[in-house]
Protein backbone atom coordinates (compact mmCIF):
# COMPACT_ATOMS: atom_id res chain seq x y z
CA UNK A 1 0.00 0.00 0.00
CA UNK A 2 2.86 2.29 0.92
CA UNK A 3 4.47 1.78 -2.47
CA UNK A 4 1.30 2.86 -4.21
CA UNK A 5 1.32 6.16 -2.30
CA UNK A 6 5.03 6.75 -2.85
CA UNK A 7 4.58 6.02 -6.56
CA UNK A 8 1.61 8.42 -6.64
CA UNK A 9 3.77 11.16 -5.11
CA UNK A 10 6.59 10.49 -7.58
CA UNK A 11 4.09 10.60 -10.47
CA UNK A 12 2.57 13.87 -9.30
CA UNK A 13 5.97 15.51 -8.85
CA UNK A 14 7.10 14.27 -12.27
CA UNK A 15 3.93 15.47 -13.99
CA UNK A 16 3.95 18.99 -12.47
CA UNK A 17 7.64 19.68 -11.85
CA UNK A 18 7.34 23.47 -11.77
CA UNK A 19 4.78 23.53 -8.97
CA UNK A 20 7.02 21.16 -7.04
CA UNK A 21 10.08 23.29 -7.77
CA UNK A 22 8.40 26.53 -6.71
CA UNK A 23 7.24 25.17 -3.36
CA UNK A 24 10.60 23.51 -2.66
CA UNK A 25 12.39 26.74 -3.62
CA UNK A 26 10.28 28.90 -1.25
CA UNK A 27 10.71 26.41 1.57
CA UNK A 28 14.45 26.16 0.91
CA UNK A 29 14.85 29.95 1.09
CA UNK A 30 12.82 30.09 4.31
CA UNK A 31 14.79 27.32 5.99
CA UNK A 32 18.08 28.77 4.72
CA UNK A 33 17.25 32.11 6.33
CA UNK A 34 15.94 30.34 9.44
CA UNK A 35 19.20 28.40 9.76
CA UNK A 36 21.37 31.48 9.25
CA UNK A 37 19.26 33.47 11.72
CA UNK A 38 19.46 30.65 14.25
CA UNK A 39 23.25 30.80 13.98
CA UNK A 40 23.08 34.60 14.29
CA UNK A 41 20.98 34.30 17.44
CA UNK A 42 23.46 31.75 18.76
CA UNK A 43 26.38 34.05 17.91
CA UNK A 44 24.74 37.10 19.52
CA UNK A 45 24.04 35.11 22.66
CA UNK A 46 27.67 33.98 22.63
CA UNK A 47 28.81 37.62 22.34
CA UNK A 48 26.61 38.64 25.27
CA UNK A 49 27.75 35.62 27.23
CA UNK A 50 31.35 36.53 26.48
CA UNK A 51 30.93 40.05 27.78
CA UNK A 52 28.91 38.88 30.72
CA UNK A 53 31.31 36.14 31.78
CA UNK A 54 34.71 37.73 31.27
CA UNK A 55 36.04 39.31 34.48
CA UNK A 56 34.26 42.59 34.66
CA UNK A 57 34.93 43.84 38.13
CA UNK A 58 38.35 44.08 39.80
CA UNK A 59 38.41 44.82 43.52
CA UNK A 60 41.90 46.11 44.33
CA UNK A 61 42.95 45.05 47.81
CA UNK A 62 44.57 47.44 50.29
CA UNK A 63 48.29 46.81 50.76
CA UNK A 64 47.93 46.05 54.47
CA UNK A 65 45.10 43.55 54.08
CA UNK A 66 45.62 40.20 55.74
CA UNK A 67 45.24 36.87 53.91
CA UNK A 68 42.30 35.90 56.14
CA UNK A 69 40.48 39.14 55.31
CA UNK A 70 41.08 38.58 51.59
CA UNK A 71 39.84 34.98 51.92
CA UNK A 72 36.74 36.22 53.76
CA UNK A 73 35.94 38.57 50.90
CA UNK A 74 36.64 35.83 48.34
CA UNK A 75 34.38 33.35 50.12
CA UNK A 76 31.65 35.94 50.49
CA UNK A 77 31.76 36.56 46.74
CA UNK A 78 31.84 32.83 45.98
CA UNK A 79 28.63 32.38 47.98
CA UNK A 80 26.94 35.27 46.17
CA UNK A 81 24.64 33.93 43.42
CA UNK A 82 24.96 37.14 41.43
CA UNK A 83 28.69 36.64 41.13
CA UNK A 84 30.75 34.02 39.32
CA UNK A 85 34.32 33.21 38.27
CA UNK A 86 35.87 34.72 41.38
CA UNK A 87 39.66 34.77 41.09
CA UNK A 88 42.31 36.11 43.44
CA UNK A 89 45.26 37.78 41.70
CA UNK A 90 48.32 38.16 43.92
CA UNK A 91 50.92 40.92 43.57
CA UNK A 92 53.26 38.44 41.82
CA UNK A 93 50.58 37.39 39.38
CA UNK A 94 49.78 41.03 38.73
CA UNK A 95 53.43 41.60 37.87
CA UNK A 96 53.35 38.64 35.49
CA UNK A 97 50.29 40.09 33.79
CA UNK A 98 52.08 43.44 33.53
CA UNK A 99 55.16 41.75 32.08
CA UNK A 100 53.05 39.99 29.52
CA UNK A 101 51.31 43.21 28.58
CA UNK A 102 54.63 45.03 28.17
CA UNK A 103 56.54 42.17 26.57
CA UNK A 104 57.42 44.37 23.59
CA UNK A 105 59.29 46.70 25.97
CA UNK A 106 61.15 44.53 28.59
CA UNK A 107 62.76 47.59 30.12
CA UNK A 108 59.45 48.71 31.60
CA UNK A 109 58.95 45.44 33.50
CA UNK A 110 62.55 45.37 34.75
CA UNK A 111 62.03 48.67 36.54
CA UNK A 112 59.10 47.52 38.66
CA UNK A 113 58.77 45.19 41.62
CA UNK A 114 55.69 43.21 42.69
CA UNK A 115 55.16 45.54 45.63
CA UNK A 116 53.85 48.37 43.52
CA UNK A 117 51.04 46.18 42.14
CA UNK A 118 48.06 45.73 44.42
CA UNK A 119 46.58 42.27 44.83
CA UNK A 120 43.06 42.02 43.54
CA UNK A 121 39.94 39.91 43.47
CA UNK A 122 38.47 39.67 39.97
CA UNK A 123 34.99 38.46 39.32
CA UNK A 124 32.24 38.53 36.77
CA UNK A 125 28.49 38.82 37.17
CA UNK A 126 25.82 36.34 36.18
CA UNK A 127 23.81 39.26 34.85
CA UNK A 128 25.08 42.72 34.02
CA UNK A 129 22.06 44.30 35.70
CA UNK A 130 23.53 43.32 39.09
CA UNK A 131 26.71 45.30 38.39
CA UNK A 132 25.92 48.57 40.19
CA UNK A 133 24.42 46.82 43.19
CA UNK A 134 27.31 44.33 43.63
CA UNK A 135 29.99 46.99 43.05
CA UNK A 136 28.37 49.20 45.68
CA UNK A 137 28.44 46.37 48.20
CA UNK A 138 32.07 45.38 47.43
CA UNK A 139 33.20 49.02 47.70
CA UNK A 140 32.05 49.05 51.31
CA UNK A 141 34.37 46.15 52.21
CA UNK A 142 37.23 47.34 54.43
CA UNK A 143 39.95 45.43 52.56
CA UNK A 144 38.95 46.93 49.23
CA UNK A 145 40.92 49.96 48.18
CA UNK A 146 39.16 50.74 44.97
CA UNK A 147 37.09 49.11 42.25
CA UNK A 148 38.06 48.84 38.59
CA UNK A 149 35.92 47.96 35.61
CA UNK A 150 36.85 46.28 32.37
CA UNK A 151 36.40 48.15 29.11
CA UNK A 152 33.19 46.31 28.31
CA UNK A 153 31.45 48.16 31.08
CA UNK A 154 32.94 51.49 30.10
CA UNK A 155 33.62 52.58 33.66
CA UNK A 156 31.10 53.32 36.41
CA UNK A 157 29.46 56.21 34.57
CA UNK A 158 28.82 54.22 31.43
CA UNK A 159 27.72 51.08 33.24
CA UNK A 160 23.99 51.51 32.74
CA UNK A 161 24.49 52.49 29.08
CA UNK A 162 26.65 49.45 28.38
CA UNK A 163 24.11 47.11 29.93
CA UNK A 164 21.28 48.73 28.03
CA UNK A 165 23.21 48.64 24.75
CA UNK A 166 23.97 44.94 25.02
CA UNK A 167 20.43 44.18 26.04
CA UNK A 168 19.03 46.14 23.08
CA UNK A 169 21.26 44.37 20.57
CA UNK A 170 20.33 41.02 22.05
CA UNK A 171 16.63 41.91 22.01
CA UNK A 172 16.72 43.12 18.40
CA UNK A 173 18.47 40.00 17.18
CA UNK A 174 16.26 37.59 19.08
CA UNK A 175 12.89 39.27 18.63
CA UNK A 176 13.60 40.74 15.18
CA UNK A 177 15.02 37.45 13.95
CA UNK A 178 12.14 35.54 15.47
CA UNK A 179 9.57 37.76 13.76
CA UNK A 180 11.42 37.53 10.45
CA UNK A 181 11.64 33.75 10.60
CA UNK A 182 7.98 33.52 11.62
CA UNK A 183 7.02 35.68 8.64
CA UNK A 184 9.07 33.52 6.29
CA UNK A 185 7.64 30.32 7.69
CA UNK A 186 4.11 31.73 7.42
CA UNK A 187 4.81 32.59 3.78
CA UNK A 188 6.12 29.05 3.23
CA UNK A 189 3.04 27.63 4.87
CA UNK A 190 0.75 29.70 2.64
CA UNK A 191 2.68 28.72 -0.51
CA UNK A 192 2.65 25.06 0.50
CA UNK A 193 -1.05 25.27 1.34
CA UNK A 194 -1.86 26.95 -2.00
CA UNK A 195 0.20 24.49 -4.07
CA UNK A 196 -1.18 21.45 -2.25
CA UNK A 197 -4.66 23.00 -2.52
CA UNK A 198 -4.14 23.35 -6.28
CA UNK A 199 -2.96 19.77 -6.48
CA UNK A 200 -5.97 18.56 -4.52
CA UNK A 201 -8.24 20.67 -6.68
CA UNK A 202 -6.88 19.17 -9.90
CA UNK A 203 -7.20 15.71 -8.37
CA UNK A 204 -10.77 16.28 -7.24
CA UNK A 205 -12.10 13.79 -9.79
CA UNK A 206 -9.57 11.24 -8.63
CA UNK A 207 -10.54 11.82 -5.00
CA UNK A 208 -14.21 11.34 -5.87
CA UNK A 209 -13.43 8.07 -7.67
CA UNK A 210 -11.37 6.80 -4.75
CA UNK A 211 -14.16 7.79 -2.39
CA UNK A 212 -16.73 5.88 -4.47
CA UNK A 213 -14.67 2.70 -4.64
CA UNK A 214 -14.30 2.61 -0.87
CA UNK A 215 -11.12 4.49 -0.03
CA UNK A 216 -11.02 5.68 3.56
CA UNK A 217 -10.27 9.38 4.19
CA UNK A 218 -6.81 8.44 5.44
CA UNK A 219 -6.11 6.48 2.23
CA UNK A 220 -7.15 9.52 0.17
CA UNK A 221 -5.12 11.92 2.32
CA UNK A 222 -1.98 9.79 2.51
CA UNK A 223 -0.41 10.61 -0.90
CA UNK A 224 -1.30 14.29 -0.49
CA UNK A 225 0.26 14.50 2.97
CA UNK A 226 3.23 12.47 1.74
CA UNK A 227 3.69 14.90 -1.14
CA UNK A 228 3.59 17.91 1.21
CA UNK A 229 6.06 16.20 3.54
CA UNK A 230 8.37 15.47 0.61
CA UNK A 231 8.39 19.15 -0.40
CA UNK A 232 8.83 20.27 3.16
CA UNK A 233 11.69 17.92 4.01
CA UNK A 234 13.38 18.69 0.68
CA UNK A 235 13.07 22.41 1.51
CA UNK A 236 14.49 21.85 4.98
CA UNK A 237 17.46 19.84 3.68
CA UNK A 238 18.32 22.19 0.82
CA UNK A 239 18.01 25.31 3.04
CA UNK A 240 19.91 23.70 5.88
CA UNK A 241 22.74 22.31 3.71
CA UNK A 242 23.13 25.66 1.92
CA UNK A 243 23.38 27.47 5.25
CA UNK A 244 25.78 24.85 6.61
CA UNK A 245 28.07 25.22 3.60
CA UNK A 246 27.95 29.01 3.87
CA UNK A 247 28.74 29.00 7.58
CA UNK A 248 31.48 26.37 7.21
CA UNK A 249 33.00 28.42 4.41
CA UNK A 250 32.89 31.68 6.38
CA UNK A 251 33.78 30.30 9.83
CA UNK A 252 37.57 30.83 9.52
CA UNK A 253 37.02 34.44 8.41
CA UNK A 254 34.46 35.11 11.16
CA UNK A 255 36.65 33.58 13.84
CA UNK A 256 39.71 35.56 12.77
CA UNK A 257 37.65 38.79 12.54
CA UNK A 258 36.11 38.49 16.00
CA UNK A 259 39.33 37.22 17.58
CA UNK A 260 38.80 35.94 21.09
CA UNK A 261 35.02 36.51 21.05
CA UNK A 262 33.62 33.03 20.37
CA UNK A 263 30.84 33.98 17.92
CA UNK A 264 31.11 30.51 16.38
CA UNK A 265 32.56 27.43 18.00
CA UNK A 266 36.06 26.81 16.72
CA UNK A 267 35.50 23.10 17.38
CA UNK A 268 33.91 21.59 14.22
CA UNK A 269 32.09 18.83 16.11
CA UNK A 270 30.42 21.44 18.35
CA UNK A 271 29.44 23.50 15.30
CA UNK A 272 27.99 20.38 13.66
CA UNK A 273 26.11 19.57 16.86
CA UNK A 274 24.51 23.01 16.76
CA UNK A 275 23.58 22.43 13.12
CA UNK A 276 22.17 19.01 13.98
CA UNK A 277 19.95 20.59 16.65
CA UNK A 278 18.80 23.23 14.14
CA UNK A 279 18.09 20.49 11.56
CA UNK A 280 16.03 18.51 14.08
CA UNK A 281 14.02 21.61 14.98
CA UNK A 282 13.52 22.50 11.31
CA UNK A 283 12.40 18.97 10.44
CA UNK A 284 9.85 19.23 13.21
CA UNK A 285 8.65 22.61 11.93
CA UNK A 286 8.68 21.24 8.37
CA UNK A 287 6.57 18.28 9.44
CA UNK A 288 4.11 20.59 11.20
CA UNK A 289 3.85 22.92 8.19
CA UNK A 290 3.38 20.08 5.71
CA UNK A 291 0.97 18.09 7.82
CA UNK A 292 -1.32 20.95 8.80
CA UNK A 293 -1.11 22.53 5.33
CA UNK A 294 -2.06 19.36 3.51
CA UNK A 295 -4.75 18.30 5.98
CA UNK A 296 -6.29 21.78 5.73
CA UNK A 297 -6.09 21.73 1.92
CA UNK A 298 -7.75 18.30 1.72
CA UNK A 299 -10.47 19.13 4.22
CA UNK A 300 -11.22 22.38 2.37
CA UNK A 301 -11.76 20.51 -0.91
CA UNK A 302 -13.63 17.56 0.58
CA UNK A 303 -16.14 19.88 2.21
CA UNK A 304 -17.24 21.12 -1.21
CA UNK A 305 -20.27 19.22 -2.68
Amino acid at each position, binding site marked *: *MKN*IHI*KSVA*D*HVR*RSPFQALSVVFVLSVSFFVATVLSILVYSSSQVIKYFETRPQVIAFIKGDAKTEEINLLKNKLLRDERVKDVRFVSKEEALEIYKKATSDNPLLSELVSPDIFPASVEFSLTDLSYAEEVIGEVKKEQVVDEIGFTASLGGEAGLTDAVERLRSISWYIRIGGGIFVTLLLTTSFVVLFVIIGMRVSTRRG*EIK*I*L*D*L*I*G*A*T*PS*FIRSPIILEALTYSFLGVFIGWISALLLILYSTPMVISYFGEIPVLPSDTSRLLLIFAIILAAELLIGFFLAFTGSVLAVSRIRKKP
Partner: protein
Amino acid sequence: MLELISVTKTFGRIKAVEDVSFSIDKGEFVFVTGPSGAGKTTIIKMILRDLLPDSGQILVAGKDITDLPLKQVPFLRQKIGVVFQDFKVLPEKTLRENIEIALAICAVDRSEWKDRVDNVLEITNLTKRQKLFPSQLSGGELQRASLARAVVVNPRIILADEPTGNLDWDTADSIIELFKRINAEGKTIIMATHHNLIIKKYADRLIEINKGRLVNDTKKKKADKKDNTD
Protein backbone atom coordinates in the same frame (compact mmCIF):
# COMPACT_ATOMS: atom_id res chain seq x y z
CA MET B 1 -28.75 -9.86 -0.12
CA LEU B 2 -30.29 -6.43 -0.85
CA GLU B 3 -33.64 -4.95 0.07
CA LEU B 4 -35.15 -1.52 -0.44
CA ILE B 5 -38.14 -0.79 1.79
CA SER B 6 -40.32 2.22 0.91
CA VAL B 7 -37.36 4.31 -0.15
CA THR B 8 -38.04 7.93 -1.05
CA LYS B 9 -35.56 10.55 -2.17
CA THR B 10 -36.32 14.12 -3.14
CA PHE B 11 -34.17 16.89 -4.54
CA GLY B 12 -36.00 20.08 -3.58
CA ARG B 13 -39.47 19.73 -5.08
CA ILE B 14 -38.45 16.89 -7.38
CA LYS B 15 -39.24 13.39 -6.18
CA ALA B 16 -36.41 11.35 -7.70
CA VAL B 17 -37.47 8.11 -6.02
CA GLU B 18 -40.85 7.59 -4.39
CA ASP B 19 -41.78 4.73 -2.12
CA VAL B 20 -39.71 2.14 -3.96
CA SER B 21 -39.47 -1.36 -2.49
CA PHE B 22 -37.84 -4.46 -3.90
CA SER B 23 -35.52 -7.19 -2.78
CA ILE B 24 -32.71 -8.94 -4.59
CA ASP B 25 -31.42 -12.38 -3.69
CA LYS B 26 -27.86 -13.56 -3.71
CA GLY B 27 -26.60 -14.43 -7.19
CA GLU B 28 -29.35 -12.58 -9.05
CA PHE B 29 -28.72 -10.49 -12.15
CA VAL B 30 -31.22 -7.65 -12.03
CA PHE B 31 -31.76 -4.94 -14.59
CA VAL B 32 -33.14 -1.65 -13.30
CA THR B 33 -34.59 0.15 -16.26
CA GLY B 34 -36.60 3.21 -17.11
CA PRO B 35 -36.31 6.42 -19.13
CA SER B 36 -33.71 9.07 -18.40
CA GLY B 37 -34.48 10.83 -15.12
CA ALA B 38 -36.58 7.93 -13.88
CA GLY B 39 -34.47 7.51 -10.76
CA LYS B 40 -32.23 4.55 -11.68
CA THR B 41 -28.96 6.30 -10.89
CA THR B 42 -30.41 7.71 -7.65
CA ILE B 43 -31.23 4.16 -6.54
CA ILE B 44 -27.70 2.99 -7.43
CA LYS B 45 -26.20 5.97 -5.56
CA MET B 46 -28.35 5.28 -2.49
CA ILE B 47 -27.24 1.63 -2.42
CA LEU B 48 -23.65 2.89 -2.58
CA ARG B 49 -24.43 5.43 0.20
CA ASP B 50 -23.41 8.24 -2.13
CA LEU B 51 -26.88 9.62 -1.39
CA LEU B 52 -29.04 9.17 1.66
CA PRO B 53 -32.77 8.50 1.20
CA ASP B 54 -35.22 10.88 2.86
CA SER B 55 -37.15 7.93 4.19
CA GLY B 56 -37.21 4.16 3.99
CA GLN B 57 -34.60 1.51 4.57
CA ILE B 58 -31.89 -0.06 2.44
CA LEU B 59 -30.75 -3.39 3.78
CA VAL B 60 -27.47 -4.85 2.57
CA ALA B 61 -26.89 -8.34 3.92
CA GLY B 62 -29.63 -7.63 6.47
CA LYS B 63 -28.08 -4.39 7.75
CA ASP B 64 -29.72 -1.02 7.23
CA ILE B 65 -27.11 1.15 5.55
CA THR B 66 -29.11 4.37 5.88
CA ASP B 67 -28.08 4.73 9.50
CA LEU B 68 -24.53 3.60 8.90
CA PRO B 69 -22.03 6.01 10.49
CA LEU B 70 -20.07 8.04 7.95
CA LYS B 71 -16.83 6.41 9.04
CA GLN B 72 -18.22 2.99 8.09
CA VAL B 73 -19.28 4.01 4.58
CA PRO B 74 -15.89 3.24 2.94
CA PHE B 75 -16.07 -0.30 4.33
CA LEU B 76 -19.56 -0.75 2.87
CA ARG B 77 -18.27 0.44 -0.51
CA GLN B 78 -15.35 -1.96 -0.31
CA LYS B 79 -17.88 -4.79 -0.30
CA ILE B 80 -19.69 -3.42 -3.35
CA GLY B 81 -18.08 -3.40 -6.76
CA VAL B 82 -19.20 -0.51 -8.89
CA VAL B 83 -19.05 0.12 -12.64
CA PHE B 84 -19.90 3.55 -13.99
CA GLN B 85 -21.13 4.78 -17.35
CA ASP B 86 -18.16 7.14 -17.60
CA PHE B 87 -15.78 4.38 -16.39
CA LYS B 88 -14.26 6.51 -13.61
CA VAL B 89 -10.78 5.12 -14.00
CA LEU B 90 -7.84 7.09 -12.68
CA PRO B 91 -6.35 8.86 -15.70
CA GLU B 92 -2.82 9.11 -14.32
CA LYS B 93 -2.49 5.42 -13.54
CA THR B 94 -1.96 2.51 -15.90
CA LEU B 95 -4.72 -0.03 -16.32
CA ARG B 96 -2.94 -2.45 -13.99
CA GLU B 97 -2.42 0.27 -11.35
CA ASN B 98 -6.12 1.14 -11.60
CA ILE B 99 -6.96 -2.42 -10.64
CA GLU B 100 -4.25 -2.62 -8.00
CA ILE B 101 -5.53 0.49 -6.25
CA ALA B 102 -8.81 -1.29 -5.48
CA LEU B 103 -6.78 -4.03 -3.77
CA ALA B 104 -4.78 -1.43 -1.86
CA ILE B 105 -8.00 0.26 -0.70
CA CYS B 106 -9.35 -3.04 0.56
CA ALA B 107 -6.01 -3.75 2.25
CA VAL B 108 -5.59 -7.03 0.39
CA ASP B 109 -2.24 -8.64 1.15
CA ARG B 110 0.31 -7.60 -1.45
CA SER B 111 1.34 -11.20 -2.07
CA GLU B 112 -2.11 -11.82 -3.56
CA TRP B 113 -2.09 -8.86 -5.90
CA LYS B 114 -0.32 -10.42 -8.88
CA ASP B 115 -2.54 -13.50 -9.12
CA ARG B 116 -5.73 -11.56 -8.57
CA VAL B 117 -4.91 -8.83 -11.09
CA ASP B 118 -3.66 -11.32 -13.68
CA ASN B 119 -6.86 -13.30 -13.23
CA VAL B 120 -9.23 -10.37 -13.78
CA LEU B 121 -7.12 -9.09 -16.66
CA GLU B 122 -7.49 -12.49 -18.29
CA ILE B 123 -11.25 -12.60 -17.65
CA THR B 124 -11.72 -9.15 -19.13
CA ASN B 125 -9.24 -9.90 -21.96
CA LEU B 126 -7.05 -6.92 -21.04
CA THR B 127 -3.76 -8.68 -20.30
CA LYS B 128 -2.05 -7.09 -23.28
CA ARG B 129 -3.31 -3.63 -22.35
CA GLN B 130 -2.30 -3.66 -18.68
CA LYS B 131 0.58 -1.20 -19.03
CA LEU B 132 -1.41 1.36 -21.01
CA PHE B 133 -2.94 4.51 -19.58
CA PRO B 134 -6.71 5.16 -19.84
CA SER B 135 -6.15 7.74 -22.58
CA GLN B 136 -4.64 4.95 -24.71
CA LEU B 137 -7.66 2.63 -24.34
CA SER B 138 -10.96 2.40 -26.21
CA GLY B 139 -14.35 2.87 -24.55
CA GLY B 140 -14.97 -0.88 -24.43
CA GLU B 141 -11.56 -1.51 -22.92
CA LEU B 142 -12.12 1.20 -20.33
CA GLN B 143 -15.44 -0.32 -19.35
CA ARG B 144 -13.82 -3.74 -19.04
CA ALA B 145 -11.08 -2.15 -16.95
CA SER B 146 -13.75 -0.60 -14.73
CA LEU B 147 -15.37 -4.01 -14.39
CA ALA B 148 -12.01 -5.66 -13.66
CA ARG B 149 -11.42 -3.13 -10.87
CA ALA B 150 -14.87 -3.84 -9.43
CA VAL B 151 -14.43 -7.62 -9.55
CA VAL B 152 -10.85 -7.90 -8.31
CA VAL B 153 -11.79 -7.28 -4.67
CA ASN B 154 -14.31 -10.13 -4.81
CA PRO B 155 -17.35 -8.02 -3.83
CA ARG B 156 -20.69 -9.37 -2.67
CA ILE B 157 -22.65 -7.11 -5.00
CA ILE B 158 -21.73 -5.40 -8.25
CA LEU B 159 -23.56 -2.21 -9.14
CA ALA B 160 -23.39 -1.05 -12.74
CA ASP B 161 -24.79 2.32 -13.70
CA GLU B 162 -25.42 2.41 -17.45
CA PRO B 163 -22.22 0.50 -18.19
CA THR B 164 -23.04 0.31 -21.88
CA GLY B 165 -24.27 3.88 -22.21
CA ASN B 166 -21.20 5.06 -24.09
CA LEU B 167 -20.61 1.92 -26.14
CA ASP B 168 -21.69 0.60 -29.52
CA TRP B 169 -23.89 -2.52 -29.64
CA ASP B 170 -21.14 -5.08 -30.26
CA THR B 171 -18.97 -3.73 -27.47
CA ALA B 172 -21.96 -3.40 -25.16
CA ASP B 173 -22.94 -6.96 -25.93
CA SER B 174 -19.46 -8.22 -25.08
CA ILE B 175 -19.52 -6.27 -21.82
CA ILE B 176 -22.86 -7.77 -20.79
CA GLU B 177 -21.52 -11.24 -21.68
CA LEU B 178 -18.71 -10.51 -19.27
CA PHE B 179 -21.18 -9.49 -16.56
CA LYS B 180 -23.06 -12.73 -17.23
CA ARG B 181 -19.87 -14.74 -16.74
CA ILE B 182 -19.20 -12.97 -13.46
CA ASN B 183 -22.82 -13.49 -12.40
CA ALA B 184 -22.46 -17.20 -13.19
CA GLU B 185 -19.69 -17.29 -10.57
CA GLY B 186 -22.29 -16.33 -7.96
CA LYS B 187 -22.02 -12.55 -7.83
CA THR B 188 -25.15 -10.44 -7.40
CA ILE B 189 -25.37 -7.84 -10.14
CA ILE B 190 -27.66 -4.82 -10.27
CA MET B 191 -27.43 -3.00 -13.53
CA ALA B 192 -29.16 0.26 -14.37
CA THR B 193 -29.73 0.56 -18.10
CA HIS B 194 -32.20 1.84 -20.66
CA HIS B 195 -30.63 -0.21 -23.45
CA ASN B 196 -33.66 -2.10 -24.80
CA LEU B 197 -31.67 -4.58 -26.87
CA ILE B 198 -29.69 -5.62 -23.83
CA ILE B 199 -32.83 -5.94 -21.74
CA LYS B 200 -34.55 -8.05 -24.39
CA LYS B 201 -31.53 -10.31 -24.79
CA TYR B 202 -30.36 -10.70 -21.21
CA ALA B 203 -32.96 -9.67 -18.66
CA ASP B 204 -33.97 -12.48 -16.33
CA ARG B 205 -35.34 -10.02 -13.88
CA LEU B 206 -36.37 -6.50 -14.67
CA ILE B 207 -37.22 -3.69 -12.27
CA GLU B 208 -38.84 -0.84 -14.12
CA ILE B 209 -38.82 2.66 -12.68
CA ASN B 210 -40.74 5.60 -14.05
CA LYS B 211 -40.91 9.08 -12.54
CA GLY B 212 -39.33 7.70 -9.39
CA ARG B 213 -41.90 4.97 -8.87
CA LEU B 214 -41.50 1.25 -9.31
CA VAL B 215 -43.86 0.36 -12.11
CA ASN B 216 -42.86 -3.20 -12.86
CA ASP B 217 -40.87 -5.95 -11.17
CA THR B 218 -40.83 -9.15 -13.22
CA LYS B 219 -39.91 -11.24 -10.18
CA LYS B 220 -42.97 -9.98 -8.34
CA LYS B 221 -45.10 -10.68 -11.40
CA LYS B 222 -43.75 -14.21 -11.67
CA ALA B 223 -44.41 -14.78 -7.99
CA ASP B 224 -47.95 -13.37 -8.28
CA LYS B 225 -48.55 -15.53 -11.35
CA LYS B 226 -47.26 -18.58 -9.51
CA ASP B 227 -49.54 -17.80 -6.56
CA ASN B 228 -52.55 -17.49 -8.88
CA THR B 229 -51.87 -20.82 -10.64
CA ASP B 230 -51.41 -22.53 -7.27
